[in-house]
């Protein structure tokens, strides 16, 4: 299973980490990197990665998205959905050409985002994106693998009819090797603790894999460890929270509002959780062996010095996460059975460790292990299904 860097703001951290041998490639974010700057990047950074075209909101000129030749506003300033009738072929060509010029590993078919998908969503997506894209690739004898980007809304997981509709749509296309799959995340907690959501997401991935499709999971956080038991081809690591959880807000060109910055957190592979730095301070005061709960990396010595000023915008905690999470993923067995047993073992151990911590430190719901019993139950339920 590969690990891609989901890049965004401060993609420099991901690039540096990738050049240090962490992760298998980079997923580029047009709202954060100018099109010409991306073209000028060293080919070695692109040949094992791909572009997230980010036409989710079609003509929303967020960040540097307007610098991309396929940005609809460059074809017509007030470009709207009806304009796709006449421009979809041109748009697909521009999008493919730009991706080819960069020589990415995969070609990605864009996808649109709606708060509530219209009834014609799949038919429109086929007509406006999938068909012109695949036609152009075929006509030009382009040899690269093509992935279809798909945003899976919560309702598509919980409602069987909707789930079947989207699965039928994805698997019904020829000339597509796989999906760049994004689970929309509307949860308010930092970890996903919804049993049905998680189990349905795993089952969703499994159906795609059973259909011989490559599955690349975008915008994933710690739960990708859980998703790994459905044997996807890749998962992602991202720095800021909005790169580890998909929300459309990131792509909306909203007026900048004053927001409270998040607290710095440190990921622990043993705890399967991001622990708020202030709790690490409490652990340091109350538990002599506090450092044992956290992984080793080249960044750890600096982070654990008293002089280190913890801040959510510092690179070290993220680069540490990229490194330790990549290693954790790579340590997973290649077989599904092996992966399930390994993950169950890690969860059991994490629950013991949390008990030890909570003997001294009262953690809140976003730093504790309250997601782990649900995860364990999800694995058991999935295991039951596959051994039926």
């Amino acid at each position: 299973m590969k690990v891609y860097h989901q890049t965004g703001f401060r993609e420099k951290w991901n690039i540096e980490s990738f050049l240090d041998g962490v992760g298998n490639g980079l997923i580029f974010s047009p709202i954060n990197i100018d099109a010409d700057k991306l073209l000028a990047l060293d080919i070695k950074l692109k040949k094992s990665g791909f572009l997230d075209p980010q036409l989710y909101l079609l003509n929303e000129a967020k960040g540097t998205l307007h610098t991309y030749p396929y940005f609809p506003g460059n074809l017509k300033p007030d470009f709207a959905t009806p304009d796709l009738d006449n421009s979809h072929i041109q748009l697909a060509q521009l999008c493919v050409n730009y991706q080819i010029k960069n020589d990415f590993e995969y070609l990605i078919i864009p996808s649109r985002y709606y708060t509530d998908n219209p009834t014609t969503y799949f038919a429109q997506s086929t007509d406006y994106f999938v068909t012109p894209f695949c036609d152009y690739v075929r006509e030009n004898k382009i040899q690269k693998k093509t992935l279809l980007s798909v945003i899976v809304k919560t309702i598509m997981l919980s409602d069987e009819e909707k789930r079947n509709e989207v699965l039928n749509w994805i698997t019904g296309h020829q000339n597509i090797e796989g999906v760049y799959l994004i689970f929309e995340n509307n949860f308010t907690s930092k970890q996903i603790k919804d049993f049905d959501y998680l189990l349905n997401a795993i089952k969703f991935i499994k159906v795609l894999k059973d259909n011989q499709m490559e599955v690349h999971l975008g915008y994933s956080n710690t739960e990708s460890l859980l998703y790994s038991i459905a044997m996807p081809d890749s998962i992602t690591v991202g720095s800021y929270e909005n790169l580890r959880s998909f929300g459309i807000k990131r792509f909306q060109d909203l007026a900048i509002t004053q927001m409270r910055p998040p607290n710095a957190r440190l990921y622990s592979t043993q705890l399967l959780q991001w622990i708020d730095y202030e709790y690490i301070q409490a652990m340091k005061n109350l538990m002599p062996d506090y450092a044992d709960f956290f992984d080793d990396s080249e960044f750890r010595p600096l982070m654990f010095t008293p002089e280190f000023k913890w801040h959510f915008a510092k690179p070290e905690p993220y680069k540490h996460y990229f490194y330790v999470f990549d290693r954790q993923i790579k340590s997973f067995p290649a077989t599904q059975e092996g992966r399930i047993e390994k993950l169950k073992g890690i969860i059991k151990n994490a629950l013991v460790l949390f008990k030890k911590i909570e003997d001294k430190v009262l953690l809140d719901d976003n730093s504790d292990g309250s997601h782990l019993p649900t995860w364990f139950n999800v694995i058991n339920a999935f295991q039951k299904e596959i051994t039926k």
Partner: protein
Amino acid sequence: MFSTEKEMSVMFEKYLKANFGNAYCKESQGLFGVPDFVFYAKQKQAVLIISFELKLKNWKKAAKQAFRYKSFSNISYVVLSSKITNTALKLFEKYNIGLAKFDADRCFEILHKPKLGTPYSESLNKKLIETITSSRKKSKNIETLVR
């Protein structure tokens, strides 16, 4: 009984002022959580910080919030409007979090008096103290809140 936490907060503030002095800040931002009141007492070179979290219900959530305040406080209290069970009280004892009851009759009863502690985060404690260094407000009867 208080009908809202705001009502409880208004009455508690009056009680604080009358019994412990006016050396306090309301809803201090930029720390680890937002305590309803941060009380301070200047003692020679040091400044003693006592945080209060007021709650009408959900004592467990209040305890978690109060534990966070121990990052920058020497003492952290949860103030509830009604009594809780012994099991719940044990949690406050375990984590050395203060627990008090304050009702609509302005009756303040300490159910668990915590030991004085050192804030877990030197930098957060320093940040808070910097905001109150120049304050001339006076505190009194602090010893009644500390074991």
